[in-house]
């Protein structure tokens, strides 16, 4: 009944080809305005002229994202360990954490830019803000749900608090931390790109904004495709790491 893997991939490729061909056809026939929706061939032709600039911008963006990501994971895991261990405190502040997590962070972006100016710092702060909450919330839940029996047994065998964390809690939350890391990276990249679009001098977001404002649609589409491909590659890479780790466990 269900098609095999090879047929699925074939159908996927075929669909992409059909869409690209139809789009090319529509653009050539003049059914869509090339000013707004350039033909795929025009996008491909713009790659050499825009390539170097776009790759440099992407590298800039990814470097900021990497810093924001490292900060989100470290701070998020730390906050998760504290919140997950201190139950009474956690249940008291939970509504605040959820409210901050759910609030559209774009609303504080103008204020961040006002305080930190244009450039790298606001992008890193805002990216961290985006990545921190999902990591903190997931890790808090994981620490809270560590099997109580394990903790009791470890304590009754005389484990000190530090040993409890290193030998029982940390190994138990590894899967959640990895899941949080996979989730967090997209949020960090999103945050960095938003800041670059809002108030960036460098980076992919600012480049794409400039292309859009200059009606340079082919370059814009090429840049969009490049960021999307990079982002999908990062997520698939983390998925692969995740798979390998869970098999190893």
């Amino acid at each position, binding site marked *: 009944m269900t098609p095999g893997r090879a047929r699925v991939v074939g159908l996927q490729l075929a669909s992409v080809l059909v869409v690209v061909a139809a789009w090319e056809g529509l653009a050539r026939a003049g059914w869509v305005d090339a000013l707004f929706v350039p033909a795929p061939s025009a996008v491909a032709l713009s790659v050499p002229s825009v390539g170097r600039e776009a790759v440099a911008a992407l590298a800039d963006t990814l470097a900021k994202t990497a810093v924001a990501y490292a900060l989100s994971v470290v701070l998020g895991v730390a906050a998760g360990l504290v919140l997950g261990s201190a139950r009474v405190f956690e249940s008291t502040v939970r509504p605040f954490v959820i409210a901050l997590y759910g609030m559209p962070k*774009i609303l504080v972006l103008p204020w961040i830019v006002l305080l930190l100016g244009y450039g790298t710092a606001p992008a890193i702060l805002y990216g961290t803000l985006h990545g921190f909450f999902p990591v903190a919330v997931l890790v808090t839940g994981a620490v809270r749900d560590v099997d109580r029996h394990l903790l009791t047994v470890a304590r009754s065998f005389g484990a000190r608090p530090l040993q409890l964390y290193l030998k029982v809690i940390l190994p138990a939350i590894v899967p959640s931390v990895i899941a949080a890391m996979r989730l967090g990276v997209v949020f960090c990249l999103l945050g960095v*790109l938003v800041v670059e*679009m809002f108030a960036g001098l460098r980076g992919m977001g600012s480049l794409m*904004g400039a292309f*859009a404002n200059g009606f340079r649609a082919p370059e814009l*589409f090429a840049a*969009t495709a490049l960021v999307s491909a990079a982002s999908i590659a990062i997520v698939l890479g983390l998925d692969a790491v995740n798979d390998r780790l869970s098999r190893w466990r």
Partner: protein
Amino acid sequence: MRVALARAAIVAVVLLAWEIAARVGSPLLYVPPSAAVPALRDLLLLRSYPDLPENLLITTREIVVAYGLAVAAGLAVGFALGLYRTLGRVYGPMLAALYAVPAVVWYPSLMLFFGLDAASKIAFGFLLGFFPITLATLAGIRQVNPQLVTVARAFGARPATVFVKVLVPGMLFTLVGGLRTGLALSVVGVIVGEILGSKAGMGALINHAYGLLRTADYVALVVVTLVVVVATDAAASLLERRARRWTE
């Protein structure tokens, strides 16, 4: 009771610390609560921004249209992919891969295509809301026990009956969660779009206040926008609870 007291104390301490820090630092940059409250009053009395109601209406309308489109398209695509196995196997993973791209990369193209007016905000709110709704519909259908469908068919239920009596109740839990996430993301999409570039709506007012360094007005506008966000989420959570009670 004690928890509520502790929470109130936390809020009080934060506000107090903010007030002191802002007065010591720069009241213009950090906007102490004592300056934000009068600004909020002026805003609500339509003294600082007389066009607040129109702009609030514009933003709300963008959210409603974006979410309505996202629900319609998300359900249609989700059901199509869920009910036709081959379609789901081919296009489900492609959608999931696109979901891994931070949606804001599409915004410049949408702005180029739809311009600075409401259409680009609606398109972006739609895009953000569409994915969680589609993926939740797909996940919901997959979690319905296929034996229930077989049994219903064996007893002579027509496709429409199977759909209403077996499929929808079985997947409602997941579906409603996706609809709620979709609403939150549609709201975020519209607001992000407005702040990244617009001529009208709450985002335009926020940018105006920020650009003129009217920081107290900026804080007041953010508070009003947050009220809209919280109100939509509260309404969604009410519906979600009702739907869950109905399935149990």
